[in-house]
């Protein structure tokens, strides 16, 4: 097996509980946004990181790039220990790891033209200037499927799909090896979503990119991921190669997420497991298995309410954190 390009071991990020009004009173409970998360991604591969809002998946993406500081854990990218790096080498490493955000409206500076947005990283990382920079900007735009004349546009003149293409071009401008894609298609129409997913697949092939693809929709992830990790309340509850996970999910949460995907076929026979309620607050996770209050598994028992299931290998290459992983839903 080739060594992983991205290796994450025991990643932890806790946010301190806020105090009440005016900073008085007792601080509230610590929010365990990311709680001991481990995974590895081989070069040129995609890990899909899936879960509902608030499960900590975006925090994982940001902590890996040190856009927020992790509290514990080891992150290695391209053989370099990211967590231990000082400011200067970290900046150099940033050339090799970039991020694309969910909201194509909020993540582009409304006062900068597309040209300025693409020229800035080239200048900061001393990659190109002058005529060379112009050439690179034009070819970047073409690579993401935009006419080079878009360089003169401001974000408000672009559609959601075009903005997302600019966000991708900006991330690619420094020629990274690794991209964190944080819900890159969730805010787009299905037709545009398909275009952007195809673009990401093409770019990955052409540039041998490695992706951490964060999403809440397992159907979207199926089109791009080689491996899938499912997160719930700050922890990975299932992890497996994509074909294995889609063919036979072992955690009832994964099964529920799969059943929630709308099927574009009115005659489809299926049982939709509708999970009751919302994700509990990560400041007050339920005792035992954190999924137990919403779990639809018929065998669920007292053990689920008291004993936290460990993430363990239940089949070759497939890990699940469920006491009943051998009897999946």
């Amino acid at each position, binding site marked *: 097996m080739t060594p992983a390009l991205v290796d994450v071991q025991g990643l932890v990020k806790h946010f301190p509980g806020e105090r009440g009004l005016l900073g008085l009173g007792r601080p509230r409970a610590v929010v365990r946004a990311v709680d001991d998360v481990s995974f590895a991604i081989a070069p040129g591969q995609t890990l899909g990181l899936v879960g*509902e*809002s608030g499960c900590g998946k975006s925090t994982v993406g940001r902590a890996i790039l040190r856009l927020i500081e992790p509290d514990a854990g080891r992150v290695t990218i391209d053989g370099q220990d990211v967590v231990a790096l000082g400011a200067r080498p970290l900046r150099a490493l940033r050339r090799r790891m970039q991020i694309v955000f969910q909201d194509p409206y909020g993540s582009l500076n409304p006062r900068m033209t597309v040209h300025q947005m693409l020229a800035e990283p080239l200048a900061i990382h001393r990659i190109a200037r002058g005529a060379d920079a112009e050439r690179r900007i034009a070819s970047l735009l073409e690579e993401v499927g935009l006419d080079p004349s878009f360089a003169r546009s401001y974000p408000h003149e672009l*559609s*959601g*799909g*075009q903005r997302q293409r600019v966000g991708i071009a900006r991330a690619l401008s420094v020629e990274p090896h690794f991209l964190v894609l944080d819900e890159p298609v969730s805010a787009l*129409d*299905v*037709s*545009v*979503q*398909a*275009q952007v*997913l*195809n673009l990401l*697949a093409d770019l990955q092939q052409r540039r041998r990119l490695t992706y951490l693809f964060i999403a*809440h*929709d*397992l*159907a*979207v992830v*199926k*089109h*791009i991921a080689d491996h899938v990790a499912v997160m719930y309340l700050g922890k990975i509850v299932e992890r497996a190669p*994509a*074909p294995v996970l*889609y063919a036979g999910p072992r955690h009832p949460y994964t099964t*529920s*997420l*799969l*059943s*929630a*995907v*709308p*099927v*574009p*076929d*009115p*005659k*489809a026979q299926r049982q*939709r497991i*509708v*999970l009751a*309620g*919302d994700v509990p607050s990560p400041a007050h996770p339920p005792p035992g298995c954190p999924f137990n209050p919403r779990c639809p598994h018929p065998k669920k028992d007292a053990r689920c309410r008291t004993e936290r299931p460990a993430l363990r290998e239940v089949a070759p290459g497939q890990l699940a954190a469920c006491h009943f992983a051998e009897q999946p839903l």
Partner: protein
Amino acid sequence: MEPLLRVRDLKTYFVTEHGSGTARAVDGVSFEVQPGETLGIVGESGCGKTVTSLSILRLIPEPPGHIRPGSFIEFEGRNLLTLEPRELRAIRGNQIAMIFQEPMTSLNPVFTVGDQIAEAAIVHQRLSRRAARTRAIEMLNLVGIPDPDERVDHYPHQMSGGMRQRVMIAMALVCHPKLLIADEPTTALDVTIQAQILELLDRLQADLGMAVMLITHDLGVVAGSADRVVVMYAGQVVEQAPTTALFARPLHPYTEGLLASVPRLDAPPAREHGRLHGIPGQVPAATAWPDGCRFHPRCRYAWDRCRAEAPPLLDAGGEGEPGAHTVRCWLLTEPRRRTPHP
């Protein structure tokens, strides 16, 4: 059966600021909603779905917008476009209700959810404050919010996205409307919460016997809920059919493209190396719809006639009554051409 709502040749235009012309956002749309049925309205952003629903409620800001003479919107036999404001208010929010896409911005942050749900009941049904509060608690219970007695006094910021969308639904349904217009009710939500909300709408519709207009860009969402589907493109209806017929035999190339864009769990893993067959390009500006068939620049079947001549809605035949399945496409006259050009 008399339709509950009949929209005929609706044209809603906007005069743009920069003199770039008139935006023909909705340009000759006709459809009907039967009592108790769910009608799905599907299309990409910019196709006129939302303007259609706002026109029905007469919520189009005038100026810059206006509904053209000759348009006709009839609800239970009354033309909504000629009603006095007072008469219109008696229908809007009472017999026709609407839920919007963004539950975050559609709720007032400074009133409790109970007050916001109760308001319509006080205005339209002249309930006392106390009775309206009781009704609000009933509604919260109906939409599946736990501890409704407590939640009634909460503010929107104390609730999650899924809960706020439930509150929106409770607000819309408090007067037991005959028609609910749901504009992208699940688009901003997680798939799990989307499944909850769709299930809830199905159940409430069955219990209350109301008709629903479900507006979405995702054909996957209408497949499980709608009885019939209207597909809109560039301000027009391009295909209209019972849901089963539409999915079994999507005839308009735009419908085909929308269907192929939906990521599916049942797709073979390496469908052309994981590629989705979407629709190239994007919806043109409403100030400059293309000549001929408005879809032709993005259509993989287009030929000379499509560029020159706008197709009318043609009857596709098939099962059911004449006119049950209609399509605005020249392919219907020359089915041989349904082989894409290289």
